[in-house]
């Protein structure tokens, strides 16, 4: 039992290592989404980049003689979140530099509802921004932003709307945090906040339509949370423990973990949560896989029983049976079934029969081997003690099961692959079919989910197999220890 507990405790770190490794491989191999491409994979040494981005954009705009469209776009995108770093620095710039900066800030001002006339000269615009900052610098604090958004969330008025709009991207964190609806009564609040966030960021596709229901509102709120997880680092600065947490959170891996926790292991390309598809697929795949295991167990047990009756002759029969069963691969049988039965082949019961057959060769081979060894082993001792052959056969069921559990570990990979292939050939919508589809048209969330799931299964099976083998035949652990096994 101590061995089992020790192995189970190791499962956590092992799984973490596997998710890191798998995510690294998949993220490197698959083309990145455009909006996460600039995020580091696992560790973000400089989270909260708004100050750095704003200052750099300001310097580029000020120092260049000509236009700096990229820097201007950056400043416009950063919006209100950049103002605490741009406006105080405006005084120190040359008049030409100030003029270029306020020109770059014009889209931000328009978004914030500030009344700028496009015919104004630059100095007047600079003056307007300076006055704005004198009056509103105190508003650019997290507590003020939070209060403003809460007031707007409670009830919409023109004044409250203006308050939040003037904070622009500085209020995004609170806007998105307040967005998820708790019930049908919150639909209006979600719609209002989503509308405002869409106006600020230009993500008009994330608005909530007027006739939307609760499910759609939850979906929009989740979509905004996903968006914020990917872009948060551009609009915020962190300090203290929050900065340390952000070093891990504001990464592609952190984004995947957050999405997996929030959205049932993430969303597929089809928009469905991975967990829902996993549950649906498992209803098909697990019974098929269980049939494969059952076929192997039945083969092993019958082999064990037969071997105890007449070891030498049965060994030959079992060996020939194993060879014959390998001559009829389950893939060929499945394709034959589809050819002959047509639409009738698309049934889970046919898959179950095929999987019973798929598991058998493994066990028959082991049975043949057991039969050869039986003459000198346990059944011979029983025979010498006067036990009838069939009773000796029954006694060997337990030993055969122990042997199978020990051996099956090496064949599970093949059995799982065959389960997926049988599903695919018969057109059953299980985990295998979905995985094959996700491998052909790579879907990071599904591949991560099945990778972690398969790793978890492999780890648990490894522990379970050792425990069960030891339970069925305590000599196993000693024998395994003798050849460098778990003991």
């Amino acid at each position, binding site marked *: 039992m101590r061995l089992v507990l020790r192995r189970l405790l190791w499962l956590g770190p092992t799984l973490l290592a596997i998710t890191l490794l798998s995510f690294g491989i998949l993220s490197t191999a698959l083309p990145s989404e455009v909006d996460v491409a600039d995020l580091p994979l696992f560790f973000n040494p400089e989270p909260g980049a708004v100050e750095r981005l704003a200052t750099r954009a300001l310097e580029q705009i000020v120092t260049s003689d000509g236009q700096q469209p990229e820097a201007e776009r950056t400043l416009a995108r950063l919006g209100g979140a950049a103002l605490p770093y741009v406006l105080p620095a405006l005084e120190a710039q040359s008049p030409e530099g100030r003029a270029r900066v306020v020109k770059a800030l014009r889209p931000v001002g328009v978004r914030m509802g500030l009344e700028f006339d496009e015919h104004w000269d630059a100095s007047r615009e600079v003056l307007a921004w300076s006055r704005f900052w004198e009056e509103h610098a105190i508003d650019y604090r997290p507590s003020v932003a939070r209060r403003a958004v809460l007031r707007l969330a409670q009830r919409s008025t023109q004044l409250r709307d203006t308050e939040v709009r003037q904070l622009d991207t500085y209020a995004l964190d609170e806007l998105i945090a307040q967005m998820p609806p708790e019930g049908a009564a919150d639909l209006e609040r979600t719609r209002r906040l989503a509308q405002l966030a869409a106006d600020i960021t230009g993500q008009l596709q994330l608005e909530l339509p007027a006739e939307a229901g609760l499910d759609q509102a939850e979906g929009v709120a989740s979509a905004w949370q996903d968006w914020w997880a990917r872009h948060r680092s551009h609009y915020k600065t962190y300090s203290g423990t929050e900065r340390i947490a952000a070093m891990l959170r504001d990464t592609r891996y952190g984004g995947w973990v957050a999405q997996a926790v929030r959205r049932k292991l993430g969303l597929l390309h089809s928009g469905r949560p991975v967990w829902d598809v996993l549950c649906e697929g498992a209803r098909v795949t697990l019974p098929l896989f269980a049939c494969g295991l059952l076929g192997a167990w039945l083969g092993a047990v019958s082999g064990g029983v037969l071997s105890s009756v007449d070891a*030498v002759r049965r060994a030959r029969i079992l060996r020939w049976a*194993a*060879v014959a069963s390998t001559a009829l691969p389950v893939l060929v049988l499945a394709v034959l079934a589809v050819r002959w039965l047509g639409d009738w082949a698309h049934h889970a019961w046919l898959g179950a029969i095929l999987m019973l057959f798929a598991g058998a060769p493994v066990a028959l081979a082991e049975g*043949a*081997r057991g039969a050869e060894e039986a003459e000198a082993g346990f059944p011979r001792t029983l025979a010498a003690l006067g036990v009838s052959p069939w009773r000796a056969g029954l006694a060997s069921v337990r030993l055969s099961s122990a042997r199978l559990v020990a051996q099956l570990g*090496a064949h599970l*990979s093949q059995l799982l692959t065959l389960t997926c292939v049988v599903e695919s*050939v018969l057109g059953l919508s299980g985990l295998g079919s979905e995985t094959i589809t996700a491998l052909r048209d790579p879907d990071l969330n599904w591949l991560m989910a099945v990778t972690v799931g398969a*790793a978890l299964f492999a780890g648990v099976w490894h522990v379970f197999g050792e425990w069960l083998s030891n339970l069925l*035949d305590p000599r196993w652990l000693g024998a395994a220890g003798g050849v460098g096994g778990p003991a």
Partner: protein
Amino acid sequence: MKQRAASPLARHLALGFLALLLLAGLLSDWLAAPQAVSAAALQQELASATNSQLLGWWMLATRNVLAVSATATLFGALFGSALGALAIYGSGGVGGALSRLVGFTGAYPGLLLVGLFRLGDPSHGVLALLGALSLLRTFEVAQLVRAELLHALLGDFVEASRALGASRRWQLRAHVVPRLIRPLMVNLLQGASALIGLEAALSFVGLGLPAGVPSWGGGLAAVARAEQALPFAVAAASIGLSCAVLYGLGASFGADRARPGGSPGAALVPLGAARSGS
């Protein structure tokens, strides 16, 4: 125990079949060259292929399948033997880690492994398939070699030879290596049989050899719903017969193998060790 050797006729037939496959693979470039269509088109239009085109496709597919299976088997044998031999020096560390790694990869779906390898494969499938199949074989062979070496090195006859002054090198040459060769050969033959089945299954679902490269699994997928029975029969029989012949050959070597006492404990050697019939 009186050993009953496998039927020589069956073994000769099996070896003959393998020789035929090898010959077909070796001559495929020469015999399949006169085909008017490319190899990719040959496989795609297999359902309507003429007999000579079918023969050409079969030879090319045989060559490719044999190349993949033999390469993965060879890599598995080389790296697995080296890894298994090294692992006996670390009872708790390297050996324990190897045992867990084998246990883990044994239960990890090969399909997923190949698929993940494929995503970063510049050759669109060939290297990924070879890499994944070789990896699967390597760990299995490593566990077998480790188990067999430990089994032999802990034997009384090795202790006795040591007491008589035999060097470690002599012990390895006289006692250990001869006891390792046969189970390894059995494992490699039966492993190659499993690899052919796995490659066919992966190619069938489009995750094996690239679509333009003829293979038995890919051909089976191309004619799965075709009216003509001959191309289907050729593809299916190639997979089934090859698997059975390799498996049967391995089993016959395993049956011939002289076994020590055969205590129940020794019979329960875990994981890949027992697969060979050790």
